[in-house]
């Protein structure tokens, strides 16, 4: 089973969200997701300043096999993107929870985090 860090929250569509000390939320895709996708070869990130709505599409990840939408777990403004992924998308395969983060959101309502799945709940999703 994929390793799931305890400080993360999840969408059932395999995105993770981490509430940082400064109140922003970092978003990426899970280890399980990168494993399902296989070798990741292209990532389209949102523009900084874009307003996104929880569970709306915010980025695109393409493996050799297929293209998938990446949804944001939380509503708000995109304040930073991991542009290193544009040159090295394979980082997501090797480090989905750290160097392979996608973007940071300044949330409108941080309470939305409580709508997300806990690591335990998410791991049940992965087993289905």
């Amino acid at each position, binding site marked *: 089973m994929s390793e799931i860090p305890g400080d993360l929250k999840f969408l059932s569509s395999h995105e993770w969200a981490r509430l940082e000390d400064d109140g922003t939320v970092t978003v990426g895709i899970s280890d399980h997701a990168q494993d399902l996708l*296989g*070798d990741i*070869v*292209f990532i*389209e990130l949102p523009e900084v300043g874009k307003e996104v709505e929880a569970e709306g599409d915010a980025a*695109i990840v*393409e493996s*050799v*096999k*297929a*293209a998938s939408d990446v949804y944001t777990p939380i509503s708000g403004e995109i304040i930073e993107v991991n542009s290193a992924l*544009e040159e090295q998308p394979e980082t997501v*395969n090797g480090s989905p929870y750290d160097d392979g983060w996608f973007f940071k959101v300044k949330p409108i309502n941080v309470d939305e985090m409580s709508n997300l799945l806990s690591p335990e709940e998410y791991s049940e999703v992965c087993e289905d």
Partner: protein
Amino acid sequence: MKKTFLYEDHLSHDAKMVDFSGWSMPINYGSQIDEHHQVRNDVGIFDVSHMSIFKISGQNAESYLRYIFSNDVKKISDKNKALYGLLLNENGGIIDDLIVYHSEGDFLIVSNCATKEKNEAWYQVHASKFDVSVEYIDNHGILAVQGPNSIKVIEKIFRGDASSLNTNECVKTDGVMVAKTGYTGEEGFEVICENKYLRKIWNSAIESGAKPIGLAARDTLRLEAGFCLYGSDMDESVNPHVCGLSWTVDLNDEDREFIGKQAFLNINEKDEQKMIGILLKDKGILRPGYEITHIEGKGIVLSGTFSPTLKKSIGLARIDQTNEQSGKVKIRDKELEIEFVSPRFLKKI
């Protein structure tokens, strides 16, 4: 789900197994990109035992094959050799693509797994007219050993002439047929034999330096080589011209009648769309179904992927006739530039 004889061996090499037309097959053993490079730079081994094998027996086997196959098996019937070609229907549409092997008097057909039932029915309909028997061989498997170092591996496993075969030649050695054929664009061999020999050959190849390669890498390898995939790049709705496969329709012997011949002769190639290779200039990945436009018309992406060798996206496409060298492809809400090129992305063969 059907399993090949080497199912457990794949699991022991950490394969990720997927459902491939009803067969549980290894899609990768970790990284399909690493596996792709392994075949381009060294040597890999594929279990392709899901492919269908048919044996054609009877005095009229040659006449029968000359009638149902687009290519003329007369070219190989006095040799030990393989011949690529198509099964055409009466309209010139492509029922399947396949390889006919002739070895020491025996004719074998190897074709796709998803088309097995359809082909079998087609073979049987026409077999009665020629008094031949067509038998599906389910106790055999196929291994492909591909890559620049494949000769070294074959040399170690098989005695005799196997490693010195020329392209498309085949030889039987100790009950195993070894052919210089493949689907990767690299020098390579395909081995057809009874299941009981498979594990020994698989293990010997791995001991000799071959790494297991999954079907995902097989797809990027074939696409770089410009080989069509049945179901994606061709089907019964298109004729060989449209797929760049008219070279597999042998018209040299004017007296040879074969299914689809008249329909094929009635087609004016210039009226048809054509198959091309496409290269995406920008970042992004070409996918089947994406729409193409150029100054004189339009087209569609049939196969598209990321080329691990070229490190950019490539594809096969069908477009309206044009001499234009470039066009545009619609990817989601963007129009991106593509170059029209030969489908042989790697001219290595």
